[in-house]
């Protein structure tokens, strides 16, 4: 996602610095990746998983983002983006994780990824219409990735009343014969 690095730095550097200082003090991750990661690290993966779960909590017969391990699917997707896009996405995730105001009783900042799902959803909706451009961008980028991975997942087809891709036997079709397709020059 083409999140402007400059915008992120301008708006986010203070929060990022604060966050970086706090990282060491944070308790363990709420979620841990089930397998080796390709683009994210354990922390950004867990923030992404907490975003996905807040956006797609499941229920009423729908699987949740956690059940489908959307964050790991996205780790793979993100690994194919330009390195600078990957870096910006990770920055965006850290920015979000450091965004919640207030401190826990023991004086530590409350990371987004450890907040209740309702708080997370409300925070995300706040970012959707935030007056801070970079927040809207982070929301849009993360929402796009998460929703594409979730609603494009075959487990969700039925919930969308979608029969799934039809099969025209194309996989078994012979390779296109370019010379047969060609028109001879007039």
């Amino acid at each position, binding site marked *: 996602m083409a999140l402007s690095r400059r915008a992120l730095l301008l708006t986010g550097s203070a929060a990022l610095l604060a966050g970086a200082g706090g990282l060491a003090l944070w308790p363990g991750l709420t979620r841990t990746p089930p397998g080796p990661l390709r683009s994210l690290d354990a922390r950004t993966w867990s923030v992404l998983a907490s975003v996905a779960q807040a956006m797609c*909590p499941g229920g009423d017969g729908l699987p949740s983002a956690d059940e489908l391990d959307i964050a790991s699917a996205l780790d793979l997707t993100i690994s194919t983006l330009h390195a600078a896009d990957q870096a910006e996405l990770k920055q965006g995730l850290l920015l979000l994780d450091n965004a919640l105001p207030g401190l826990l009783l023991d004086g530590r900042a409350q990371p987004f990824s450890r907040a209740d799902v309702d708080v997370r959803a409300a925070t995300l909706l706040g970012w959707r219409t935030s007056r801070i451009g970079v927040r809207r961008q982070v929301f849009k980028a993360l929402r796009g990735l998460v*929703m594409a991975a979730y609603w494009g997942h075959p487990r969700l087809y039925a919930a969308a009343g979608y029969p799934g891709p039809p099969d025209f036997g194309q996989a078994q079709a012979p390779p296109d014969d370019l010379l047969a397709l060609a028109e001879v020059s007039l």
Partner: protein
Amino acid sequence: MITPGSELSADAELSCDVCIVGSGAGGSVLAAGLCQAGLDVVMLEEGPYATRRDFDLDEQKAIPMLYQDRGTRSTADLAITVLQGRSVGGSTTVNWTTCFRTPERILEHWRTVHRIEGLDAASLAPHFDEVERRLNIAPWPEELANPNNRKILEGARALGWEAGALRRNVKGCADSGYCGLGCPVNGKQAMHLTYIPDAIAAGLRLYSDVRAERVESAGGRATAVHAVVLDRQSGRPTERRLTVRPKVTVLAGGAINTPALLLRSGIEGQGRVGRRTFLHPVVGIGGLYEEPVLPFKGAPQSVGSHQFVDRGPDKVGFFFESAPLQPMLAALTASLIGKEMARFMGALPNLGVMIALLVDGLLPEDDGGVVSLRPDGRIRLDYPIRPFLTEAMGSAHIALARLTLAAGANEALSLHHKPRRMRDVMSMTQLAEAPYGAHEHAIFTAHQMGGCAMGPDPASSVVGTDHRLHGVDNLFVVDGSVLPTALGVNPSETIYGLAHRARGFVGEAV
């Protein structure tokens, strides 16, 4: 012959008469003509050579494979989602097949405002005749329109608005609805099934998964195209290099990418390269119908209305079509999350989305967007949504909501972050009061145009009316980036026609 980059076992250097960068609408039509005229042509395409055997119609596989930036391309502020193709055939492999000749009104605007001579309906007609024959461009019978498209007809008739069948470049179309993911039955007459085979039969050497990084030039002449082989799976660059040393170089990478390639090559055209980039920005309104309309099924675009394409000299016009909605694309049109999103998606079979495409670049003050390079080399597209566009977006929303309700929808639903829901004309005031523009609602583009504008004067354009770069003798641009304004109709046929016309200019330069 098509050679995937992965088959290059060592760095290679080629010479030829003409090197064409990009295998889409412009590049392919041109290549066929040049090869048939006996020229030795090398074509480079950064995307894969993908055919119906690869088109399994699964959005999660198709979109990263067939779209620019793996489907994540957007404006720098992320407000506009940019759909643009990236495979052999370019955007024609994934486009929705609607074909129009360039409107005379637009040609006249180019003549009077941009001083472009020689592009009038009569002189373009033989070129259009020829591409229409080769691509089997013909009206899609009204009675075959899917429910989603028929709604436009029904709504327009109820309101007394103009609407009619669209022409499509198909032969043996299975009416699947999956044009956007690659045609599974070779019905769409995309470039990889038409002009590319024509060119191959006449000797074209096409390299897929190979991206042109830079055009080298010296003394006012382009001397080489430096390219890198990409990994087909990930689309990421490998170590492998290909260098082409042609007599004539043609850039046909499409809007956004062609100006970016020029900028990477240090060719800025007096600061004009990348400027005047137009998008036909798209806004939409959903209609929730009593009966299923199955927006994922049937020819995606077969009816359109140009009722509001000309709203007078001081307003941005727009035209209406509809959009196919497979689940992933449907999910991207909304801004919802959680339960609200689940409800939206649960209604998909009964949801139709009509779209308005804004005709940018015609008002004197509308100079569109700008393509530039980031310090790390990535492409950046800035497209400010100025007040005249915001006004048009608002008017388009209201017109679309009227059309949707007139077509019998129970409810018209805006794609705002907080969707406005309209059941009758009274509730339309909500739309009059709603905000419009960046990050207020979904905005898409599937029609990227401009960035290397055509015109006679180097101070205000990048290429001449013969597609030759001002100041670089043997370098041409033959793709959608030469359009000086948006078109007010879907652009593919204009690009085919211009490329057909450009065959002579490029051939003569060899």
